[in-house]
């Protein structure tokens, strides 16, 4: 029972890391290898608000989320839209965007290094025991889980029940056909890229309440997000959430019942199995 709860907590954290990348890769078709750095930047914002302003780190969401939205929108418009315009095929765009965002991630690390220094940053917020069925769990993790489930839930609702959401889903299925039915594809791609960045930064803020981060930690989160997005099927939020939960549960089960040293092996084994038997991902449709 305890294992189940720990697994769900971990899965919710993972889904937060992957949610932003799902939007960016699924709709805007940008494999954003710098998403981990946006996450760490969100965490830095929260750290600063907590230690310098002595306020709850949730206050940082007020400026971190809009700032991340704006930054990612600008990056898409000026750095990535030219790549989109000249890509002759989806594969071409993926390669271009991988290279461009890979370089971007180094630039971001350098900027964060200059602004915040290279040290670890960590703070204690809500680090008290929260009892669920008699077992103690970190309150900060529980809160992060609840918030991430709320964010994922509302994103899913928005994508499936609003007109813009439907337009975004159309773009993720087939951008050319979407353009034919008067959907402004470039504008919506920019919107989804910016939204993905904002969600990732918010995720960083939540993770910073219980993780120790530094300017170079981003790459770990990018890799995890990549695995989850590909495993879940590109462009489908449900896929990302389900894949994240499966991964969180699998890792926790392996760590508690077998050997914590095997968690990475189990995670990547699962990844390989999914790709072998269902290469488009758990919820992925056929490739367009």
């Amino acid at each position, binding site marked *: 029972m305890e294992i189940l709860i*720990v697994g769900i907590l*971990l899965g919710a954290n993972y889904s937060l890391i992957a949610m932003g990348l799902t939007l960016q890769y699924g709709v805007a078709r940008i494999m954003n290898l710098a998403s981990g750095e946006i996450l760490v930047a969100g965490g830095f914002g929260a750290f600063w608000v907590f230690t310098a302003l002595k306020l709850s780190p949730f206050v940082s969401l007020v400026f971190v989320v809009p700032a991340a939205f704006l930054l990612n929108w600008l990056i898409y418009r000026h750095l990535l839209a030219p790549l989109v315009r000249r890509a002759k095929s989806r594969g071409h765009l993926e390669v271009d965007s991988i290279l461009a965002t890979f370089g971007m991630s180094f630039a971001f690390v350098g900027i964060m290094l200059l602004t915040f220094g*290279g040290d*670890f*940053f960590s703070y204690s917020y809500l680090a008290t025991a929260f009892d669920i069925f008699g077992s103690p769990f970190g309150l900060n993790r529980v809160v992060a889980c609840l918030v991430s489930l709320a964010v994922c839930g509302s994103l899913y609702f928005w994508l499936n029940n609003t007109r813009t959401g439907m337009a975004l889903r159309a773009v993720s299925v087939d951008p050319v056909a979407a353009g034919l039915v008067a959907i402004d594809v470039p504008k919506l791609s920019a919107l989804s890229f910016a939204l993905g960045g904002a969600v990732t930064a918010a995720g960083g803020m939540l993770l910073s309440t219980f993780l120790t981060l530094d300017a*170079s930690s981003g790459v770990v989160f990018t890799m995890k997000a990549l695995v989850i997005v590909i495993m879940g099927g590109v462009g489908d939020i449900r896929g990302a959430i389900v894949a994240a939960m499966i991964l969180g549960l699998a890792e926790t089960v392996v760590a508690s019942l077998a050997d914590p040293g095997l968690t*990475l092996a189990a995670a990547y084994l699962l990844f390989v199995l999914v790709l072998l038997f269902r290469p488009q991902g758990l919820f992925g449709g056929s490739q367009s």
Partner: protein
Amino acid sequence: MKRRSDLSLAVALAVGCLLSNGALHAQDVIKIGAVAPKTGPLAAAAATTQWPNIQLWATQVNERGGLKMKDGSRRKIVIIEYDDRTNPQETIKAVQRLATQDKVDFIISPLGTGLNLAAAPVFAQYGYPQIAVSSITDKIDELTQRYPTIFFTLGSTSAFARSVVEVLSKMRGEGKIGNKVAMVNVADAFGIELAEAARGALKKAGFEIVYDKSYPPTTIDLSPIVKGAKAANPDAFVAWSYPPDTFAITEQARIEKFSVKAYYTGVGTQFPAYVSKFGPSIEGNLGPGGIDSSSAELQAYYAAHMKVTGKPADFWGSPVTYAALQVLEQAIEGVGSTDRKAVTEYIKNNTFKTVMGAWKFKDQQIVHYWTVGQWQNGRYVGVASTGLPGAKPVIPKTGW
């Protein structure tokens, strides 16, 4: 015609002045290369113990007017920095660039066992003394024989692990703890080697290892580990961990109210950030390193570090890194020139006055170093060492 020759004369004079100024300037400074991580997995460790100490040392030396040469003149030092991105290949490239292109007089040793060992052949090839600090390995004897330019200051893996077991044995002998130990380690060379050495030492001392697991370095949820260790009902808990996991394990242990009388975590326990994050709940926590808190020189060092760099120094690597720089400084002044061979020989054969006490290298190693520290009353003090005076008694941990 006359005007042109006047002009060319003026230009020649100007160029001559610039060149001679440049040459004079180059003779006046001693160039010191420094290569260490600014990005990558070890960046945060370097930002705590390496770069601030280099900045502090260079500032202090230059405030004094520079290093004293044998002709009585003083030469200021200039630090040339490179980021090796925690990549051994980049470390090697940077050391070569410092030696062949920047033509530095001395190079400060890199941070990290792997990076130091990767760069050792290059240091030896160009004859630069390499006073390694953050390099803990059991191959010290082999390495000092192979590379006449390398020096070790922080100890060996086995001595480290043995010291922790000795502390536990002493606590057991005094009736403070029982016989059962839970041990976890990060699945990286550092954690694996220490766990290996500790396993042997624990068994030899008659301890029962009730939980023995490893975890991948970037694990973000360590609660299964802490819950598993707690369920095994140990008397002592040892974690050979890196800073992110040290912090995560401690937070989890606090949430779980993991009541063991001896609680040891790895790198990061000695960071000032550890006590500022967790506050008084970490009273009695054991960790690596430690300092002699009664030393006035050390107190002065910590104050100066804070004043010059704006950051607090840690209680393991920082003072030793600074001591290594003091060795370099005193060796250069002792020889009175930048003759690398003479300086290397000087380091091998002389005693140095450092913030860590009197240092004399024996077979290119410092054999007396702090191994275990403990947080007592908000201060991190040395409780076990390989022969240093001033160890404080170990206190049992009484809850969170």
